[in-house]
């Protein structure tokens, strides 16, 4: 019985191992942030004309020479790129993301003003998408062909519609033809519904496709049949046994979801004239507001990294094999 003995050997304390894993993640997350910042910095600082003019360049601008000189000096536009980079990283380390060209306020503040609505939107959409996917998958897995056909067709169609197209269709249907929801703005629940649905539906559709396939596969597993030989009903088996297994591969889609939420926010916020990070990101890129673009990139990378760490934790909770094996 040596093989058995092998399996029962004492393992180092679980908490210390999780802590160590967490530290590694934080370290690599920091690296990713630095990398993302550096890559974007150099991508954005390819010399393209005079940033001072860009900075002051509203359509109706007519700055005086003194103003131009002031701007150049203040932003260090005359410094070599390497110096600008080092200064940038130096400021970054002190938590200073610089000042937005357009918004004329610290990037941190500019982002702070916008992050709320985007976070609410993204969070709501994520919850809606995940809940929808789980409910629909649970209800339709292992069902008759008609139900499966209808759900898989619907999810295929929804997963195929680009987000902005869906947004415009919803906007047209609900705001113009049947004006149930207000069509623009950020405040209040009623203004959240359409944008959140726009973001959530395609994600829910993709999630449903994966989750349903997983559930169907898990339902074929011997342990499910075993549970049923004990006298457990199908619904109970799905909930108590199958769901958790099926959710494990879905957890790996978090990256996909996060990317979709952040990317989708740019389009959805534009379509629905919503305030938020997506909108200012787009505007910042169009107006070449480098500090703000950099800030948004860093924020996105940070969100991505943090969420991945969280997912790792959730993941090891979902699948104890990862922490114990």
């Amino acid at each position: 019985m040596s093989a058995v003995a092998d399996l029962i050997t004492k393992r180092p304390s679980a908490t210390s191992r999780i802590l160590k894993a967490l530290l590694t993640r934080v370290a690599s997350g920091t690296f990713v942030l630095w990398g993302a910042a550096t890559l974007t910095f150099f991508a954005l600082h390819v010399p393209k004309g005079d940033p001072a003019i860009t900075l002051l360049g509203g359509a109706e601008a007519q700055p005086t020479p003194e103003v131009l000189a002031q701007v150049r000096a203040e932003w260090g536009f005359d410094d070599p790129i390497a110096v600008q980079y080092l200064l940038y990283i130096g400021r970054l380390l002190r938590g200073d993301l610089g000042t937005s060209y357009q918004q004329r306020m610290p990037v941190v503040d500019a982002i702070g003003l916008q992050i709320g609505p985007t976070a609410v939107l993204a969070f709501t959409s994520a919850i809606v998408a995940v809940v929808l996917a789980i409910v629909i998958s649970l209800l339709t897995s292992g069902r008759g062909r008609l139900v499966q056909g209808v759900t898989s067709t619907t999810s295929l169609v929804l997963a195929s519609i680009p987000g902005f197209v869906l947004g415009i269709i919803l906007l047209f249907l609900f705001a113009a033809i049947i004006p149930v929801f207000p069509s623009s703005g950020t405040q209040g629940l009623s203004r959240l519904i359409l944008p959140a649905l726009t973001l959530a539906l395609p994600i829910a559709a993709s999630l449903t496709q994966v989750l349903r396939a997983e559930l169907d596969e898990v339902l074929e597993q011997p342990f499910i049949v075993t549970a049923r030989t004990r006298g457990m009903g199908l619904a109970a088996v799905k909930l108590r046994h199958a769901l958790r297994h099926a959710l494990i591969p879905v957890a790996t889609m978090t990256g996909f979801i996060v990317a979709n939420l952040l990317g989708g926010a740019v389009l959805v916020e534009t379509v629905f004239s919503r305030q938020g990070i997506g909108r200012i990101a787009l505007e910042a890129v169009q107006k070449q507001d480098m500090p703000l673009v950099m800030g948004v990139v860093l924020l996105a990378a940070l969100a991505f990294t943090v969420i991945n760490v969280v997912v790792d934790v959730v993941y090891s909770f979902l699948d104890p094999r990862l922490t114990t094996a």
Partner: protein
Amino acid sequence: MSAPVIDVSGLNVSFRDSGGYRRVVSDVEFAVHSGECLALVGESGSGKSVTSRSLVGLAGDNSLVEADRLEIEGADVLRNTESQWRDIRGSRLGFVLQDALASLDSLRHVGAEVAEPLRLHTDLSSRERDARVIELLRDVGVPEPELRARQRPFELSGGLRQRALIASAIAAGPRILIADEPTTALDATIAAQILRLLETLKRTSGAMLMISHDLSVVSRIADRIAVMKAGVIVEQGDAEQVLFDPKHDYTKQLLAAIPSEATRGSRLSDTSPAGRTSSRATSALESRASAGAPLIEALGLSKTYRGPDGRERVVLKDMSFAVHRGETLGIVGESGSGKTTAARLILGAELPSSGSVFLGGVEVATLSRRHQRELRRGVQAVHQDPLGSFDPRYTVRKVLDEALRVARVPRGSRMTRSFELLDLVRLLPATIDRRPLELSGGQRQRVAIARALALDPAVIIADEAVSALDVSVQAQILDLLGDVQDAAGVALLFISHDLGVIHHVADRVLVMKDGSIVESGDVEHVFTCPSAPYTRTLLDAIPHIETARASRIGASS
């Protein structure tokens, strides 16, 4: 005799296919009485599992179950609703599914799994349930049940998992226990323990239906045996009669196919020998070894792996052995004892941590890469999982072609040689354009052998080459290997955990445990008068039809 607790007659089960219905169980009739054990045997795919699953209404969503009579404890269950089934399952019928290792929810505690029938069918409080779970685990022989109940299935060995599964099946006190292949996935020693457990259960509980593809396994506990083939019961009767006086040809075939000491030197299958001698070129290895050196010699081989936790694990310790021309060396040992590792070191798929491998008397490590390859070509492998060893995109033609290319067979004659090889392993020429996935397990193993032969090896390493196969198919492959050895004069390094198989094929044997050789020598000698206690344990665990008879006669007299 009392009324049967399971009474089946005229059972037909069909599955809905793209075309229509495909019948896999036909007109099956049997009965199980209280206190007795009926064994259902037959090769893979014969319909044993489907039959048993029909008894709990879980034959499958796409199944159609018809029967003249389908009664459990006197009640007709054929037209049961889902909720009626739920009442029966677990409470009156305990079921141990075929796939023991995957039959427990890997994400839940073992205790929760065992407690589930209690939760569903009794009104014990959760405290009482916990207590009962511990009791049950103890009853089925799980050591430290309190600890085990709080572990998850993957933290348990296969044997413990099987026990937990049985505990869960009997938790709510069903009078009938159905066990589908309860020992297949297990080591011989562990399997023997489980069989003993089932024997006790048979004595204490009501009726038992046991399913196996292995006659020798069931011989120990079955009162009656039903032999299935292609969905039909071909023979049914008292265990004694079926085992020792089989009436049906198929039963006889099955019995004959079991490799063991008794079958040494004889053919297991009724196929005729592949007598053709192939014109075999002498490999580089053989010409080197002509000086009388062994083809393979391992000297003090050790292998250490670093685990994910950073700790080093010695999986092979100071192993030395030699394989000579034309002989068969068997390696036995329980799972994880390092058999495969040894084979991979010889094959050069892995470098030894210390020690050296000599091929034809030359230490391989001292040679240049090109010469190493040259020499290694003389050693070819046939693995347990033939499917995995083929590029999934390749047809048989490409598989063989690649091997022949490596063997420097000129392009023009590769075709002919491929067909020769197929003929040698008794595959039809048409097989050449099929993909591995489109072949049966036995056919795949033949292709693997053909591929190995394509390189004109002096040694073939067969690592569990027959473990995944049915007895009858296994018999054919064992026969084939024997034929090839006779015809081509190759040496065999035969690795298996099945002592019967080793006893059947090997000249000499190494017994391994925990990475070391505990005993070695002539197979007859080792198997008849083992010196190491571990060898004795191993031998005791082999189910023997003869010993079964002895004990049965002893018991009945």
